[in-house]
């Protein structure tokens, strides 16, 4: 039987629940993500300022917990906040964190099939 929680965490959400990347208050970059996979891909390309803006406001952890219903990933992202990362090192760490979670979820689904 497939693992429901894992499937939920990999879902594609409707447009109004997608994550919209901003660089500062009200300044939308035009990039958004509707799923965890898309989120990971966008981390690679958005302005690093946007990653800093959202990480330290707690927007990433809020979206992953409330919309993707993935509290595990939300906790991992929260930990990154404490490391006070900025710029490219933040991008690399955030990407690695999301990629690791995506791989874990995908493997869980594949092994339960």
């Amino acid at each position: 039987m497939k693992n429901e929680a894992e499937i939920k965490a990999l879902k594609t959400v409707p447009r109004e629940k997608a994550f919209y990347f901003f660089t500062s208050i009200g300044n939308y970059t035009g990039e958004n993500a509707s799923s965890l996979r898309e989120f990971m891909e966008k981390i690679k390309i958005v302005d690093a300022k946007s990653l800093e803006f959202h990480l330290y406001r707690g927007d990433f952890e809020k979206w992953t917990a409330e919309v993707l219903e993935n509290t595990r990933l939300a906790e991992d992202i929260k930990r990154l906040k404490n490391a006070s990362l900025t710029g490219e090192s933040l991008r690399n760490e955030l990407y690695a964190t999301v990629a690791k979670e995506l791989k874990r979820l995908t493997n869980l689904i594949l092994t339960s099939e």
Partner: protein
Amino acid sequence: MKFKNNSFRLDSTDIKILELLQEDARQTYTAIGKRLGIAHSTVYDRVRRMEKYGIIKKYTTLVDTEKAGVKTVTAIMTIYTDPKESEKVAEKLSKIPQVLEVYTSLSEELQIIAKVAAENQESLHEFIATTVAPLQGVLRIKTSIITKKFKETQHLIVNDPKELTPTNSKITNKNEGKSASEK
């Protein structure tokens, strides 16, 4: 005021009446007539006609929000849109109470310029992120928060009289469109 095929052209007297009403919409027709050297009944007729033709859209109150103690954040959003969707985006924005003014502009890219008010910076961001950014056709948004107001006026200098057709001939309320002092 010339009538031709259900339309009329504003003349210099109409324009002067409009200017005086924009200065103070509560002044009486008598006062306006006195200043222009015409009968109050002439002022009345011309005002009614301009209301009927939708030239005078409404009489409103300009509130100094600072003095009224209303704490708000006002910002100007420049919304870059897909040209096919821009009309729809502008229409949707126009229906939102927090959005005070909406304009479209053609520069290098098609833009919508909108003035928005929010309780504070956080609620402004929340509004843009959850209501404006998700609109179909929005490509990106630039927002400038207004920090200081140097001038605000509702005055519009009318110096190019145009031929106009009636847009608002249905007047339901007898008092509608009258200045407060005339009611």
